[in-house]
């Protein structure tokens, strides 16, 4: 097995991924990863708007995994997934991947597609309107996370679902900052 590690690392490098984490997401990990990326972008002299956008996208995406990837709906301790952060032609990207219940796919797909269809101004108006309302029934936050991610993203959100078995699928989301 150890003979393929070098290859795995090279694959990540070739994709310009500089941070990779796979496992559970206790809250300390979320803040630690966010902090690492903030420090790296300060060292690399990235402008403060891009830095803050990247920080925001990383936190919101990891929180989504923290809250929604548990095996049971209300079990946050088992939230497990993968985050990758990379840089490509002057832009950063954040990829998060985790298991979700297959029955959650359709509403999630609809949500992302509707956000992708909105202009920045429409996203802003929608965000402000949602913030004034009560959170959605199955939300563990303010139902604003995905809108926030879409607002900070330079391009439409990229996503895909892959079926694992009857019950679960694999959800991948990529944001470009």
């Amino acid at each position, binding site marked *: 097995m150890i003979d393929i590690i070098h290859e795995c690392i090279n694959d990540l490098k070739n994709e310009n991924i500089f941070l990779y984490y796979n496992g559970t997401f206790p*809250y300390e990990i979320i*803040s630690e990863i966010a*902090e690492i990326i903030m420090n790296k972008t300060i060292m690399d002299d990235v*402008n*403060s*708007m891009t830095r*803050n*956008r990247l*920080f*925001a996208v990383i*936190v*919101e995406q990891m*929180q989504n995994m923290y809250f929604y990837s548990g095996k049971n709906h209300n079990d946050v301790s088992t939230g497990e997934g993968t985050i990758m952060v990379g840089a490509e032609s002057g832009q950063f990207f954040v990829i998060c991947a985790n298991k979700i219940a297959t029955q959650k796919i359709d509403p999630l797909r609809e949500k992302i597609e509707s956000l992708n269809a909105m202009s920045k101004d429409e996203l*802003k108006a929608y*965000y*402000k309107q949602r*913030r*004034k309302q009560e*959170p959605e029934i199955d939300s563990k*936050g*303010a139902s*604003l*996370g995905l*809108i*926030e991610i879409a607002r900070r993203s330079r391009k439409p959100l990229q996503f895909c679902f892959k079926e694992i078995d009857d019950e679960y699928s694999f959800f991948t989301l990529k944001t470009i900052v």
Partner: protein
Amino acid sequence: MNNLVIKETKTTPEINFDISKHQLNISGRSYPENISEFYGPIFLWIEEYLEKVNDDQPVSVNIDLSYFNSTSSKVLMDMFDLFDESVDDGKTITLNWIYDSDDPDSLEFGEEFQDNLENIKMSFTSK
């Protein structure tokens, strides 16, 4: 009633509510793991303070947050609504939004709160 002082952590802002100066300062980053656990006591303090403070006593609320997540954004909106209603009831409150002049987003976030407030006119200060 006592001052409310909470030290900053990686995920929660510094809270410095000073009764003698009538200054309510929130600064740092806000993305707490448990939003109601962190902000619950802060709201209770604010509600009690707004009941006790005289109408003509100037109160300044200073918000200097370099980052807040979407859940905190909702909580801030609720908090500003409290101040907004108090102003409608006759209180004298100024709400200062301190933003990073290098980050246009940070000014925009403040303006978005203003858009949803009816009575308070926020002031914006760059740092």
